[in-house]
């Protein structure tokens, strides 16, 4: 259970988020829509502890994530998977190494890492690209690598920030199906997107943000933030 309570975030005099509250239940699929500058990215940064809220709090399973000490933040981040629009892969590491990196950080033995990484690469159909470097991959493959990395810890919560922003329609479908599959396996998915077709096709709960406020929160909704 994720509870966002009265979150307000100021950047100087600008209010990026203004008293935002909502709850996400286990296994839920939530889509966050809104124009640029509506506060989607700020909200995601707050979930990742990249930023601290000015007011309000976010609790995950009863724990306020912004009360975590700096040294505990890396361990918290390993429990949530994140996918970005610009992929954020490590350019000098292969697909395999990018995915394995997250596990290596946690100190798991090599043979276990290998098993888990290969399993995840199968899930995103990238096993045959394991030794490729990011610059050798297509946009869709890059994003699937990023998703594989986000999933490798078996997170209960996956955040996807405009994951299809840089992809062509065919890849968009691929990523969308992948997200649905992940959700069906029991992971909470929070998807921030601009992609009207995708939102309409998914038919999931849609939270609409505008100027830092929630203007709509509907189940099985279509793309509409006005």
């Amino acid at each position, binding site marked *: 259970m994720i509870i966002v309570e009265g979150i307000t975030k100021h950047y100087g005099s600008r209010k990026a988020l203004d008293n935002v509250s909502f709850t996400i239940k286990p296994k839920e699929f939530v889509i966050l829509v809104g124009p640029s500058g509506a506060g989607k990215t700020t909200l995601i940064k707050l979930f*990742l502890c*990249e930023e601290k809220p000015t007011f309000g709090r976010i609790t995950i399973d009863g724990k306020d994530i912004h009360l975590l000490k700096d*040294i505990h933040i*890396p*361990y*918290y*981040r*390993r429990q949530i998977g*994140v996918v970005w629009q610009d992929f*954020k*892969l*490590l*350019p*000098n590491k292969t697909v395999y190494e990018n995915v394995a*990196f*997250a596990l*290596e*950080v*946690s*100190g798991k*033995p*090599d043979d276990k890492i290998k098993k888990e990484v290969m399993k995840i690469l199968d899930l995103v159909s990238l096993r045959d690209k394991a030794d490729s470097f990011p610059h050798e991959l297509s946009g869709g493959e890059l994003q699937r690598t990023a998703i594989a*990395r986000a999933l490798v*810890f078996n997170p209960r919560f996956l955040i996807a920030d405009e994951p299809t922003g840089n992809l062509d329609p065919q890849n968009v479908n691929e990523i969308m199906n992948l997200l649905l599959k992940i959700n069906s396996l029991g992971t909470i998915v929070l998807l921030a997107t601009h992609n009207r077709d995708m939102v309409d096709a998914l038919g999931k709960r849609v939270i609409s943000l505008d100027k830092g406020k929630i203007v709509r929160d509907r189940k099985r909704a279509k793309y509409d933030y006005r």
Partner: protein
Amino acid sequence: MFVSFNRILRSAFSSFLRNGWLSFVTIFIMTQALLIISIFASLNVVISTSIEAVNERIDVAVFFKDTAQEDSILSLKSQTESLEGVREVIYTSPQEALEIFLEDNRNRSIIRDVISSEENFLPASLEIKVTDPYLIEEIVEQVQEMDSDHLISETSLEDNQKIIERLRNLGGFIQNSSLLLALVFLIIAVLIIFNTIRITIFTRREEIEVMKLVGATDWYIRWPFIFEGIFYGLVATVLSSLLLVAGYLTLIKPMVDSYVISTSGNPVFSAGFWTFILLLQLIIAVSVGTISSYLATRRHLSV
């Protein structure tokens, strides 16, 4: 713990290789900086050895009256030897002085014709060598005080005072300014290395950010960069040492063999000298590599 260390080393080494061009440029610049340091350090060693060699030749002679007995002169000699700052005292009898004089002028028949070995006009003398040219005046004064029978007719100090003074001042000046220059270049070289590594890490700041966002701890991110800094230092030290030895063998050695400084007992370019240069480079390269990597990553870790 061991698993992590292994991974960190492996990660540092692979990124060292995969960032080939960046690593190459960094090492190239570091090698140059180390060469500058080594050249100035060598120059300093050469200069101070040369100055020591010159200082060793600054000495003073004390001449005795004809009436002085050899016994009294020798007793004064042993007294002088016990003075502080005296390295060596050489007694030259009038007979020996004449022999040396004749030997020096063996090709000048006019002089040889005028001088007969029976009428020796040359005085007996003590040649006093000192450890520090600045002590000369004091030592001569003490010797004159010990000479209670007034056997000394004159000393070479009166004639040579100005030359000695000039040599001493020049030596001090050269030594101080070469040390200062070496220090200035040391600082410049350290700053160059520091900045090169900072830029190298700056170009990879996004990598650091990504690592943090996928849950790597600060030290897990930082160690590979620090090891890379150490690699750079090690490779640059090896390269610059090889260049230095090559340069020495082709350019410097032929000159040194015939040069003044080689006459001063200890060869300048000894094993000790090379060890000093190698250690100097190694310590500077590795410590600056480590510290600058640490500081440069710290800036990008605040995600």
